């Protein structure tokens, strides 16, 4: 059964003056997805988010969240959508709990729920002991955690996090990502996470979309993307031999499933359909070749990422 589509954009386009920042974007994000929104700086990620939230009007096209039109019904959209902006800020001279309570009150939560929700949420991110401290005294990492708390207080159906890990130390990043993944699972929240850090997206997201120059260059389930991108499920195997002869190469070519063999010094680059490492090793040894090393190129999103970044 198909899941409910939560976020949907149709030909969403935004022009600033004469530059097109977002170009006919078609996104479909389903309920419960953790969607990694990848792209280099200036690709149009933040602009897309602002249009989803109804903070910026699209030049053309539409955006819907849970069926509500972001441009026409922004209040309904904002009621069910949480947003952590990239340069998230709090009122520095107010306490953490006051800042969060303000969000809760702006969301019309009844007064008796407000403080309880704030306390619980601070507990989840481990900031309980800092509740009555002024936010101005917080480190960057603590502020980012407070931003996540802001989402917990609001408890939206969809959370949009714009670079939630910027400025945090490596260990903090891992914690933050796991926290986001947990929240998504426990609260059944759909999450859109913007990032230009590929490994972060790979860690928690199940779907990714990559935006380059305002265009969605790839989009789909994480584990399928690699295969598609590297040419119809083909693999590259790199073989290092002590001595390379043309007979050896012919041997390898004869293995069924091998599409192409290229030679570069002592290295052979074999393109094949499927993982043929065992067969290749056997063929080489049968032909009295001296096998030194064999590597299979993993389908890392990294390669696609690099490929598109180079193009961009």
């Amino acid at each position: 059964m198909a899941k409910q589509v939560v976020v949907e954009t149709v030909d969403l386009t935004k022009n600033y003056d004469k530059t097109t920042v977002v170009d006919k974007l078609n996104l479909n994000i389903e309920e419960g997805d953790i969607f990694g929104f990848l792209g280099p700086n200036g690709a149009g990620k933040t602009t897309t988010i602002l249009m989803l939230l109804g903070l910026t009007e699209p030049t053309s096209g539409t955006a819907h969240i849970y069926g509500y039109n972001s441009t026409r019904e922004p209040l309904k959209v904002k009621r069910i959508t949480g947003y952590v902006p990239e340069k998230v800020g709090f009122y520095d001279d107010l306490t953490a709990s006051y800042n969060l309570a303000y969000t809760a009150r702006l969301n019309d939560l009844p007064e008796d729920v407000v403080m309880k929700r704030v306390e619980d949420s601070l507990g989840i991110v481990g900031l309980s002991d800092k509740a009555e401290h002024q936010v101005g005294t917080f480190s960057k990492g603590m502020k980012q955690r407070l931003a996540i708390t802001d989402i917990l207080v609001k408890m939206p159906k969809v959370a949009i996090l714009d670079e939630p890990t910027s400025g945090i130390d490596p260990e903090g990043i891992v914690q933050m990502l796991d926290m986001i993944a947990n929240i998504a699972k426990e609260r059944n929240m759909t999450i859109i996470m913007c990032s230009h850090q590929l490994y972060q997206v790979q860690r928690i997201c199940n779907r990714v979309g990559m935006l380059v120059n305002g265009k969605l260059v790839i989009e789909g389930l994480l584990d399928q993307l690699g295969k598609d991108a590297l040419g119809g499920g083909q693999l590259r195997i790199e073989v290092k031999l002590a001595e390379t002869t043309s007979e050896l190469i012919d041997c390898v070519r004869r293995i069924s499933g091998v599409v192409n063999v290229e030679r570069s010094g002592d290295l052979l680059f074999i393109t094949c359909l499927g993982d043929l490492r065992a067969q290749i090793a056997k063929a080489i040894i049968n032909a009295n070749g001296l096998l030194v090393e064999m590597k299979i190129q993993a389908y890392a999103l990294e390669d696609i990422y690099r490929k598109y970044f180079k193009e961009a």
Partner: protein
Amino acid sequence: MKGLMTVFYKEVADHFTSWKGTILFVTMVLVSVFATLGPQGAIAGLRTQLATPVQYGFGRFAFLYLFTTSGEMPSFLWFICAFLVPIVGIVLGLDAINGEKNNGTLSRLLAQPIYRDAVINGKFLAGVVAIAIMLTTTVLIVSAIGLAVLGIAPSSEEIARLLLFWGVGILYGAFWLGLAMLFSVYFRSVATSAVCAIGIWIFFFPWPTGGSLMSMAARLVANVLAPYQQVYTAEWVRNAGIQITASRFSPTLLFGEAISVLLAPGATTAKQTLQLLTASGALWMPGAPSLTQTLLTIWPHLATIGGITALLFAISYVRFMREEIRAT
């Protein structure tokens, strides 16, 4: 409405708990105490006048004299008009919007389910209420000192005049608040909006000795438009007319004139009115105009200040509502 009230409560609380608000509040209290009780303040001035043969009767408005008289120091009225209200208005408004932008709180705030105008309306309203509270405190302090030290109780007409003064003071504060907020909507940097607002304040600032940069500019305009060779000629009168009209583009002058008529109804000439705002004290005339007459006199002033304030706020409002939140 809910969003508006939430923003409003938070902002009011902010104004009275932040350092900025506390300093403003303490300054206002200190200045009003000093202007009344200080060695050269109103009460000292009043004593000197009582000691010398009576030149001017106190008339029906002995209590109001506390607010309008001055010893060596300018009167409470002058402090209110020149210093306190403008400063409070400017300080409360100058980072209203751009402060939130720079702090990164605006986009988070606007992502909550509230109408966008709740933010600017709530902030403006909170500023006006903060000004009202501060003004109430100062008027009460001066009145209390008067009651305690001089033992004069205000008459009902005096109370009515003080209440009106309070209302006009809030309106004047709203003007400065609106001006500061306008700059905070237009400029990204708080420093820029501060400099602009303070520049305008200095331009309108009434010197204790009389006049202001604005009145100098008005004279310049008058001299270009209607030059005169000799005083007491028709050209001279025309020149003076232009000067007055041009000066009245200053809300500070309008406010000064309005509160002078309200609190020192005995002063009947323009010179006396001006003197009230300066060091020389009030001249009292026996036949002071009634409250109704006073209201009729100052009505155009109030309407103008109110109109300018509404215009400033409307411009900020439209600009803020149309502004596009952009990725940076």
